[in-house]
């Protein structure tokens, strides 16, 4: 190897050879399909989604994670995810930025060219020539630039990257909506790669010289003002651990909501003359905590089990209990922020009467008690959804196994690629919806059996390994049953029996309340702590 470029290419090839080989199965599959089956097979959306859209999306996401070094870095950390060991190589910042970008862009171009050439496209579809490759390369280049940048707050990388990529996507969608041609699309996308390169070079230069801003002291000062520093001793090890968890991960969700909320609420001032947009903005504001919780969950569950923590004289169950307690505090803090700031923004933007009017109209239709209950239920559901997002993947993060964490991210993203087209196809197919509605009870019953089987198996292991005391197991079971009954009660009161049968509501309540994944967390932590 005589050049830095060749060495970097070798590293990509060596480290990801199995993944890249697996990805090559996709064009091979397309080629086999093209040679062996007729066009008629691909003429419905589901077939197209399964054969083209899903594997293409999965391969794209894999390339993004490989060429941005996302598979080996901590996305939620403040420091750059560009491998620090490469900063000591005798090469320029431009070379460090350019080579992974060049290889990534080449991979994306080949991916699109192969897909375009080999896929069986639905009849009547005019397949674009170059711009999808340029879009993929641009999205990758921006992901690289933004993930290689050092940030002032943990988790900020994910938020900024997602928002920026969503903005690029929105521009492309808008252009497609106006039926922009190939040349226009190329003109829109062409500046992105060079701009992203400049951003990436700047990011690497900063990371290389250790220029890492830190806004945490500002938040800590604000917190100190709000919650003066405790000087007294902790009354128990569990309290000390909860304090540590709060300091390490608890503030991520409120901090993310604090960053995003002002931008969203600012739009209320812009769109105050358009009620429909005001309502949409309000929905976006209310879904911000659960959405941000998806990103914050990475910091809550993604932390490695350090020897310092692992050697504290505390049971694995107590370590998990501290984490769960902190996720509840985080959820409440984030929602407190939303509940305090949103009414103020509505008042100041003079959009408050629009919301009140909408509530009055609802009260006229269903009555005041039902309206109040509906508002309360929506709030409780959003609160529960936020907390659920924070804890549902805890067991994966707590396992501390890289292959499991990265594999689950890959599977989730791949599934998302399936869910969207399948949902789209389902909505269009009324017969199937009717069939599913009729079979809903059975589907729920199967899910229930799977859930209870998994929960029983986990409970047995927890008992055998003495990770939870008998009392804790019984208390957890009682708490879970109580929550299920409460949800069932609310559902039964809300939906008349003629609409949904009671047993279906019971099944919904049981399936909705987390059990197996949550109870797997202490097992996963013990598996990580005692390897």
């Amino acid at each position, binding site marked *: 190897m005589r050049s830095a470029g060749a060495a970097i290419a070798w590293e990509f090839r060596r480290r990801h050879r199995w993944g890249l080989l697996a990805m090559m199965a996709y064009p091979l599959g397309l080629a086999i399909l093209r040679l062996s089956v007729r066009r008629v097979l691909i003429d419905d959306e589901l077939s197209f989604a399964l054969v083209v859209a899903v594997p293409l999306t999965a391969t794209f996401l894999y390339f993004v994670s490989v060429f941005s070094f996302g598979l080996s870095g901590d996305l939620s950390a403040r420091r750059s995810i560009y491998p620090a060991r490469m900063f000591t190589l005798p090469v320029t910042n431009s070379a460090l930025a350019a080579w992974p970008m060049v290889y990534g862009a080449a991979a994306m171009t080949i991916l699109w060219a192969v897909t375009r050439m080999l896929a069986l496209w639905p009849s009547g579809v005019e397949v674009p020539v170059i711009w999808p490759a340029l879009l993929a390369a641009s999205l990758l280049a921006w992901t690289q630039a933004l993930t290689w940048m050092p940030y002032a707050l943990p988790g900020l990388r994910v938020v900024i990257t997602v928002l920026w990529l969503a903005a690029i996507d929105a521009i492309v969608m808008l252009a497609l909506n106006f039926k922009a041609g190939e040349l226009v699309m190329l003109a829109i996308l062409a500046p992105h790669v060079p701009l992203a390169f400049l951003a990436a070079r700047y990011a690497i230069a900063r990371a290389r010289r250790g220029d890492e801003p830190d806004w*945490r002291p500002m938040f800590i000062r604000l917190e100190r003002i709000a919650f003066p520093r405790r000087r007294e*001793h*902790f*009354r*128990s*090890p569990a*309290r*000390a651990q909860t*304090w*540590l968890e709060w*300091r*390490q991960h608890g503030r991520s969700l409120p901090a993310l909501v604090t960053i995003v909320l002002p931008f969203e609420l600012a739009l209320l001032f812009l769109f105050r003359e358009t009620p429909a947009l005001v309502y949409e903005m309000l929905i976006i504001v209310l879904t911000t905590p659960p959405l941000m919780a998806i990103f914050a969950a990475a910091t809550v569950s993604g932390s490695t089990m*350090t*020897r*310092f923590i*692992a*050697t*504290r*004289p*505390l*049971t*694995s169950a107590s370590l998990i209990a501290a984490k769960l307690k902190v996720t509840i505090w985080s959820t409440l803090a984030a929602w407190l922020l939303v509940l305090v700031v949103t009414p103020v923004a509505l008042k100041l933007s003079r959009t408050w009467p629009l919301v009140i009017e909408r509530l009055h109209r609802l009260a006229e239709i269903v009555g005041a008690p039902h309206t109040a209950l509906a508002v309360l239920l929506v709030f409780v559901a959003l609160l529960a959804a936020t907390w659920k997002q924070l804890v549902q993947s805890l067991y994966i993060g707590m396992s501390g196994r890289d292959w499991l964490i990265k594999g689950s991210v890959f599977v989730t993203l791949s599934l998302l690629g399936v869910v969207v087209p399948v949902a789209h196809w389902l909505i269009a197919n009324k017969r199937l919806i009717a069939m599913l509605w009729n079979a809903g009870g059975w589907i729920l019953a199967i899910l229930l059996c799977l859930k209870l089987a998994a929960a029983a198996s986990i409970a047995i292991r927890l008992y055998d*390994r*003495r990770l939870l005391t008998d009392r804790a197991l019984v208390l957890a079971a009682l708490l879970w049953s109580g929550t299920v009954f409460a949800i069932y009660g609310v559902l039964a009161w809300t939906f008349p029996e003629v609409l949904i049968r009671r047993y279906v509501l019971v099944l919904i309540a049981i399936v909705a309340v987390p059990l197996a994944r949550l109870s797997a967390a202490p097992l996963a932590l013990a598996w990580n*702590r*005692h*390897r």
Partner: protein
Amino acid sequence: MSEFVIAVSELTRRFGAKTALASVTLSLPRGAVYGLVGANGAGKTTLIKHILGLLRAQEGSVRIFGHDPVADPVAVLSRVGYLSEENDIPGWMRVEELIRYSRAFYPAWDDAYAEELRKMFALDPVAKVKSLSKGQKARAGLLIALAHRPELLVLDEPSSGLDPIVRRDILGAVIRSVAEEGRTVLFSSHLLEEVEQVADHVTMISGGRIVVSAPLDEIKESHRVDGRVPTLDEIFIAHAASAASEA
């Protein structure tokens, strides 16, 4: 009450094809300093991780104060003070927060002793751990390992890469712990002259096997050449060379 503080029996640990520990048997009674020496990758840290319950015994058994450290980590870790080379105290913590946090876990925590150690080590209570030098971080780790007056003090390469003053502090802590009746120290180090200064008993480990385990004086006597008592360094090098030739 168990006779031995540490009782390891036929412990075997493999990482893939590599055998890190092969049928290791070791029993440490109370009230002495045990030096654990060996080359890099010999298995010292793997053995210490089993003692702390950070690794589960694949074969054989590990008992600390008669308890399995994996099944009952609280019973074991509340009586153990631990300091490692890889000192990973959260960098965001202030020294006073570290003391307050650690204090909660140990009923035997001695506030006066902790304050005495903090002053002796010149640790600023409001300084963040990440702003401390490597030596200061080691001292902070030593403070929380000692302030609850543990029955067993485990030091895993504590002085690697540290200056002589910090190394002196660590050795001082070992000597102090020994002075307190009934306490046991397991001290793993590359710096054999340090081990020689404080250890009563030395266990030499090579390729995952214990090659020598005996009181230090006995080891030295048994290696006497032409009336001259060799240093621990010389004995170690001789054993390493013999292990290499056997391999």
